[in-house]
């Protein structure tokens, strides 16, 4: 398999704090790669650099073999940890807005929006304001925006944070279905059972560095959580 995303020696410093320190990994086509780490490990900073909203101090990012530019951004879908939606607009209006940002034509967007609404189970609430949605519905819409333009790589930053078990199950099912269709997924989470269920490979990071990398079964001795705690420690993080 060819690497759809390659990250080599990525580094980012905020004054005295090194948030990402020489991070490197690759995500292949059709693969789900889990980036695991405690709070403050540098996962979100790394993702911000990968999707292009933050400049790296050093290192290299390549998407489909190309240095990041506007064209590679069109290949990447971004599902941020924060619900990046307009709460006073409807789901359809939000999707229409972001379809425009990805340069989709009106007719093409109309069809695709209907498909995405169906996929995330919000067709019947498409014309209600997002502010009226439950946490799970908003999370699903947040993912729907990331899928709208049929990306080759979906970058998901803790997409199930704060949702009920039903919505989490629905989100995980959707991700599994999408990877089955050939989509590559870079996935960060705190939930080890999610990583074990979804990810083909995982990388455990802390203090901006890659501590270990492998398949969940390779790292799961006796289970992934034990390995995670052994490598990152039991001290509480901010």
């Amino acid at each position, binding site marked *: 398999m060819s690497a759809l995303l390659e990250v080599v020696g990525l580094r980012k410093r905020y004054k005295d704090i090194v948030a990402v320190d020489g991070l490197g990994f690759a995500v292949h086509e059709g693969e789900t790669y889990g980036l695991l780490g405690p709070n403050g490990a540098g996962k979100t900073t790394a993702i911000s650099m990968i999707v292009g909203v933050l400049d790296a101090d050093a290192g290299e990012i390549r998407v489909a073999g190309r240095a990041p530019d*506007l064209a590679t951004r069109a290949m990447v879908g971004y599902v941020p940890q924060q619900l*990046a939606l307009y709460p006073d607009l409807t789901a359809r209006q939000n999707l229409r807005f972001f379809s425009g940002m990805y340069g989709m034509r009106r007719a093409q967007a109309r069809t695709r929006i209907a498909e995405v609404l169906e996929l995330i189970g919000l067709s019947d609430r498409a014309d209600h304001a997002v502010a009226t949605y439950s946490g799970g519905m908003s999370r699903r819409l947040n993912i729907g925006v990331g899928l709208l333009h049929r990306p080759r790589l979906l970058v998901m930053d803790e997409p199930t944070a704060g949702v009920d078990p039903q919505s989490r199950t629905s989100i995980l099912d959707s991700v599994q279905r999408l990877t089955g269709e050939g989509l590559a997924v870079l996935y960060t989470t705190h939930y080890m059972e999610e990583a074990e269920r979804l990810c083909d490979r995982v990388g455990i990071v802390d203090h901006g560095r890659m501590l270990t990398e492998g398949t969940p079964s390779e790292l799961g001795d006796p289970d992934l959580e034990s390995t995670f705690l052994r490598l990152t420690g039991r001290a509480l993080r901010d």
Partner: protein
Amino acid sequence: MKVLLIAQVGLLRLARDRTNVFFVLLAPFLLILVLGQLFGGQDGLRLGVVAAQGQLADRLVTALGSGTRVTVTRAADEAALRTAVERGEVHAGLVLPASYDASLAAGRTAAVRYLIRRTDLRSHDVGTWVRSVVRQESARVLGVSPTATVTVSTAGRAVFPEGLSAFAISAPPLLLLFTFLTSLTAALGLVETRALGVSRRVHASPTRVGTVIAGEALGRVAIALAQGALIMAGSALLFGVDWGDPFGAVATLLAFSLVGAGAAMLLGASFKTPGPPISLAMILGLGLSALGGGTVPLESFDPTLRTIAHLTPHAWGYDAFAQLVRHDAGFVDVLPQLGVLTGLALVLFALGTWRLRRALT
């Protein structure tokens, strides 16, 4: 296309906020109505008179009270009349000398004195009526005493020309107030877009930062223009306000909207959370308007305060609209004001663009 879409979302979000139905659609017209009443409206006019007993004096006082709009009340003496004028109990006072009858009967001139409060705009209305009646009375007296002459003269240009609608006085400063205030409060949308993470998400899409900035700028201008145009058209239809030369009026609205939009860009790009900018928007929106002639006409300011007032864009907008609405000025006549407003808008947009680019990248 993307620029239009970003601008369109800004307008859509403004329209979906139900509180804006009051603040953007209703409040401006309610205030035009209230201030219009304050400046004139439909209430009757009150004139106080001090006059000694006498056939001719009585005839003049009776004539002054013969109209339907002016109610005449007699004051005991000039001091009482002056107090009544100062307190606003009457809109103006007229003092006939004790020798009024005797002077006219002897063929001499009798000078009457007219007392007003400078800030009472309705005194100009009463003055028109008083001059008219005194002129008529003088003509009658001339028939009795051929040696008497009457001279009516006006020095300089009237600040508020005769016949000017009270709403034509109240509407322009309120257009400036609401256009600026709505622009600044709508800047909250820009803060929210960043706080919600939407701008970050847009930045991750194949959309250039310059496109986002252009879209946000266009959205700010559209909001300011929509508010201003609504007041301009609504006040013309509802209150019969004549905004004067259409080119001059539209150019002034456009230039002032650009100032409001530029200020909104700067405000919206300078804060990460909505609390501080909304407070600042209210303080700036109301404060600059008050200083720039929004509550009390600039003409009643002393020269020093007028100079200070012209540090605000509102004062330049006020001057431009005063020329257009009251004095039949044209586009060319308000070019100096348009130049200042456009220059100010360019500075604010440059600062706002710089701040927004830093915030987005």
